[in-house]
């Protein structure tokens, strides 16, 4: 026996309107959470990048300081070495000039060079020869010059000449 003129339709717990609503709600929730997750992940990545940059910056700064120290040390070494080389060259020139200063008539037997002092031992045919040819130029170089003569049996003189440079008082 039939009680209705229409065919019965199946009726679910959730109506199609609710399903549509839940579908849009779900999409909204997914979008919200994915945006939130994106922001959080990006923030974390920036934190991590910042840590890396800070560590890199600290390392670079330490290396820069260390390299500046190296540069200063190399410059110091170069200056020091140049000073030593110059002193050696000046010493060579000084000795060269000293030996060039000695005339052929005078024979040196010993030359002792100290920081501010020059002691010469030698023989000269006469006191005048020594005084004109060697003592005069020595006097122009040194502040004080003292010479002692010793007569030799052959008429020549052996001499000891002590010459001093006075350092200016600081």
């Amino acid at each position, binding site marked *: 026996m039939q009680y209705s003129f229409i065919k019965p339709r199946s009726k679910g717990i959730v*109506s199609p*309107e*609710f399903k549509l*609503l839940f579908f849009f*709600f779900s999409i*909204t929730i997914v979008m*919200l959470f994915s*945006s*939130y997750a994106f*922001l*959080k992940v*990006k*923030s974390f990545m*920036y*934190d991590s*990048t*910042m840590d890396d*940059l*800070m560590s*890199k*910056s600290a390392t*670079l*700064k330490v*290396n*820069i300081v*260390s*390299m*500046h*120290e*190296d*540069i200063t*040390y*190399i*410059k*110091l*070494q*170069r200056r*020091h*070495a140049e000073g*030593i*080389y110059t*002193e*050696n*060259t000046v*010493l*060579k020139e000084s*000795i*060269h000039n000293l*030996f060039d200063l000695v005339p052929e008539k005078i024979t*040196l*037997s*010993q*030359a*002792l*060079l*100290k*920081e501010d002092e020059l002691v010469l031992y030698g023989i000269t045919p006469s006191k005048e020869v020594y005084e004109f040819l060697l003592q005069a130029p020595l006097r122009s170089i040194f502040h004080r010059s003292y010479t002692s003569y010793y007569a030799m049996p052959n008429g020549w003189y052996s001499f000891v000449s002590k010459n001093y440079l006075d350092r200016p008082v600081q």
Partner: protein
Amino acid sequence: MKFHISRQMIYILTLAVVFLIIVFIFAFVFLIPSGKEYRVKRLETKKFSYQVDQIQDEYDNVYSKLKTLQADNRHVISAYKSIFNPTRFSTMYRPHFQSFTLSELTAHSQDGKFAVYEVNTSSLIQSPQGFYDFLDGVNKSDNIIGVNFPIDFKRDGDLIKSSFTMHVYVGNPGHKISE
């Protein structure tokens, strides 16, 4: 006109309003602060990255300066590092002398950042030219060597007996120059 709202419609509207409220709460409590935090961090990272780039540029400049300096002063740097070898030194400079003797190397003093060692020498030369050549050669030796006073030249027959002191300068072993 009669406006009929079904019960289902009321449910849907209520649900939509509740959901909207939840969305707003979520946006204001979590999403917007996170967005702000993200923007601030992005800006900070960009700014700091620029600073690090500048530091990197400075590092590159200093590095290239150091390398140029090292290349230009290779001999001086290695000379301050090398250990004085009396045998090698005698062999190298013996040709300038008739005889050449070195005393034992002794610690002498400290010259700033450099340790000074002293070595006494006695030699026989035919003419002062040998001594001049030696002084020229010393400036090109493997070590930093200064010839010091007192220098004594004494006639010994046809030869000149010379004795002098040399100072060998060694760099501070604590200071290692980065390669």
